[in-house]
């Protein structure tokens, strides 16, 4: 049969003998990632609960730095780790379970680039707006008071 599978994961670091073996290998990897997430989620190490950087103050370059480093400035390291691990899991589900690794680059790009671009745009615009509404509610001169 003409179903050829690429049997390497981790950029060739790990090579499997058969497709079935690769599937079990990926399962083990995904289980380990999920276990790490759950353990971190239960214990929540203190060191990961506060941002390591605080926003830069000052002119244009400080703002630029805040934008470029925003995942480290505005996000708890723990949440950043969770999101990165989620994307790692999504990558292996798509590449190995959905056989994206074996598809032609044109199909892969048509699916991944379209999705990633639109989703990034959607997330950016909605989270930006949500943060703005929070500011409207919670600044010192906000018209809406804490009602209780």
């Amino acid at each position: 049969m003409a179903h050829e599978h690429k049997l390497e994961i981790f950029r060739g670091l790990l090579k499997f003998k058969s497709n079935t073996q690769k599937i079990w290998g990926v399962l083990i990897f995904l289980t380990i990632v999920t276990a790490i997430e759950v353990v971190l989620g239960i214990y929540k190490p203190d060191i990961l609960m506060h941002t390591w950087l605080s926003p830069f103050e000052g002119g244009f370059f400080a703002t630029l730095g805040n934008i470029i480093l925003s995942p480290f400035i505005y996000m708890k390291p723990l949440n950043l780790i969770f999101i990165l691990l989620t994307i790692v899991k999504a990558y292996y589900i798509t590449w190995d379970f959905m056989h994206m690794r074996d598809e032609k680059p044109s199909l892969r790009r048509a699916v991944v680039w379209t999705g990633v671009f639109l989703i990034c745009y959607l997330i950016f615009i909605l989270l930006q707006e949500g943060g703005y509404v929070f500011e409207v509610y919670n600044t010192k001169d906000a018209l809406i008071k804490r009602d209780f």
Partner: protein
Amino acid sequence: MDTTVANTGTEGKTWGGGNRPMGSSYGKLMMWFFIVSDALTFSGFLAAYGFSRFKFIGEWPIADEVFTHVPFFHGNYPMIYVAFMTFILIMSSVTMVLAVDAGHHMNKAKVTLYMFLTIIGGAIFVGSQAWEWATFIQGDYGAVQTKGGNILQFGEYVTVDGEEKFKRISIDDFAVTEASARTEHERKNGLWFVDEAPLPDYTVSEIYSGLAANSNILVRSQLINEEGEKTVLSREESLKQIKENGKLVVKGANLVVNEYGTSLFADFFFFITGFHGFHVFSGVVINIIIFFNVVLGSYERRGSYEMVEKVGLYWHFVDLVWVFVFTFFYLV
């Protein structure tokens, strides 16, 4: 005389027909189209969830305090059950991809077995989801909703292993039952053309009396403090808030009220996990149809198990979505 044009002069050329765009069959390509659009739908929901969460970032419920139950066990086990559900879904993804692999080798017996296991995994997941919903709807400690729609919860400080912790107390444990509570209006005991929703188990004044009688109980507000924990009010402030602002006693969660905090949290939980659960359910149904086709030998006769591959793509996509739902509802 030839009246039809049999030869177009394009034979053997790229546009002569018979080519597969992107090297993929029509069915698989269409499944990818569907998956991309469905992925955008789900990311729209999750981004809307993020929008509402950013809007109420200072008071959003902490997932670890909401989903703490495991079937057949009492106690506080955050994350364990949902981690189990995630594992079940990943596992059923694995059996699905093994079915696809067996299909490539035209091994009917193995495809049948792995499809069956996939269906079982999907059914366990949907069942767990239902249990999770039931627990969430039932609630555990109960709370008082204020005039402004905020939630006030109850608890006391206890020392566990030399560490002072805030332990939640159920409203059932301290509310004082008063005789003055009014009865529920039904069609048979009042206006026959008007209905009333069931009354809460307690009135705010019963909760207040209970709170006043137990000096150890404090009120916890929705606001998240510097340490990332919900703010606990002082004793005087607790009594004052319940007396002045308490409006409704809530237990559990539905689309209107939510004892765990902002009602938007419950709305998005029901909507997104419900939409995902619906995908899992339809995935199970499609899997069952394909399973019977496999058993009846349709694909054996067709000479290709590509249908299994196509339904497999959908099934993996459902798993993919759950990975994100898991992160944004339970972890972050």
